[in-house]
């Protein structure tokens, strides 16, 4: 655009003339960057609340929304904090290789704990692939190592589940005395994890399953009921846990004396009512 004679005489406008605009622009840019990370953190926190309060399906939706928000933030302004959050969300969504990359990037941008988290996620990924390729024992050793030394709780939790399932798989091939030994070992592993995180519904679920293997149906039912109350990581685990509850009820009905069963039934029935089941063996999700 051509300048007028007056403008040519005056020369370029002094910087101070643009100050208000520049300040507004900086504030806008800063504000939008900060709010994007903040938004992602808020959504992540909401998802965690839903996760804990047993609304796992909605939580999964919010985790995905967080991931979209954090990816937007990273495109604008990559930072250690943003990659750390991205990794945490990816762990929640079981995107292990992606989480490992995010933690590595967070570590390279200066976050100290992200480095060890990346290593744990990487080891977990390796254990999973070994298991898929049929190297069960090697994968079990890695899961065991992660349980012993791991600091990143989602990886520790997933490793406990994987190790226990692997140990249960071997039960069919061993004698009954070895069976008891393996089951006791698995129970110890889960109890140790529970001592560190007593409010973790998933550990109570695992314990309920293991006690079922030992035919301790009252205890198995109690653990499964606690798991249901504390919340479980996914609907499929919730349904499996409900099936365990029903199985225990049916086994106890057959094996208990009438007096004992009546006492048990009183408590069982109050849970069934609380959970809104149609009857003793029909949870809300079950086809009738």
């Amino acid at each position, binding site marked *: 655009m051509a300048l007028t004679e007056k403008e040519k005489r005056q020369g370029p406008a002094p910087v101070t003339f643009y100050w208000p605009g520049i300040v507004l622009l900086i504030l806008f840019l800063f504000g939008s960057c900060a709010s994007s990370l903040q938004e992602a953190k808020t959504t992540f926190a909401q998802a965690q609340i839903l996760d804990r309060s047993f609304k796992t399906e909605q939580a999964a*939706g919010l985790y995905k929304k967080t991931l979209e928000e954090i990816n937007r933030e990273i495109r604008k302004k990559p930072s250690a904090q943003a990659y750390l959050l991205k990794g945490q969300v990816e762990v929640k969504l079981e995107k292990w290789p992606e989480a490992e990359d995010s933690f590595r990037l967070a570590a390279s941008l200066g976050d100290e704990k992200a480095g060890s988290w990346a290593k744990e996620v990487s080891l977990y990924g390796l254990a999973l692939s070994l298991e898929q390729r049929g190297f069960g024992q090697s994968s079990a050793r890695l899961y065991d190592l992660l349980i012993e030394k791991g600091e990143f709780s989602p990886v520790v939790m*997933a490793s406990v589940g994987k190790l226990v399932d692997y140990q249960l798989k071997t039960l069919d091939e061993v004698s009954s005395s070895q069976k008891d030994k393996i089951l006791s070992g698995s129970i110890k592993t889960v109890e140790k994890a529970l001592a560190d995180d007593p409010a973790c519904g998933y550990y109570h679920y695992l314990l309920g399953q293991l006690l079922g293997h030992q035919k301790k149906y009252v205890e198995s039912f109690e653990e499964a009921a606690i798991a249901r109350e504390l919340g479980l990581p996914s609907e499929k685990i919730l349904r499996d846990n409900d099936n365990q509850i029903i199985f225990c009820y*049916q086994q106890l009905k057959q094996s208990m004396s009438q007096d004992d069963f009546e006492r048990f039934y009183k408590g069982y029935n109050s849970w069934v009512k609380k959970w809104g089941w149609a009857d003793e063996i029909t949870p809300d999700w079950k086809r009738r």
Partner: protein
Amino acid sequence: MEEKKLVSFLQQTKKILSDFFPLNSVALFPLMYSSLVWALNRKAEIKTKVLELEVWLDPDILKNKADEFVLNFFESRPGLREAYAEELSKKDLKGLKAAFKFLYPVVGLEDPFLENLFSLELREGNYRRLGDDFESRLSRALSEIQAARARPEFWKRLKTICGEFLNLGWSLMTEAEVRKQLRELFSSLE
């Protein structure tokens, strides 16, 4: 729910979604059925649920169950008890556990997608064929869905369909009742 109205809705839905799937698709009806059930539950975004299909189908539940649990699974369901009478009478746990691996997600956990994918076998009580076909049919269905969801219009249409389904008015019915009605009508569509 007025049956005529629902049938015409389902026929329209089939017409719209069949653009995204090959002829003789194995995934079209399971996807329709499970999306409508998920929409009814309003548990999550339909897109999230469809994207989760692969995760859901590899459950992180403890897969290795106690012998008594497996026996109870077969004995407490009349259809399974009849189909696996021989294994049950011989207490053939190896055979029962092999079948349990496929049957538990469909019959025990009642996943709506799998329920529809094997609706014919479930209706006929042909549980053995369900086991034989499980892996091949499932992987075919998942690859069809993967191809369909790559097309941008897919999500938009699926979302619209689920929204219209909810507008048909289901508030007075339970999920089990809706699933029953849908199952009956889906069999007439096939």
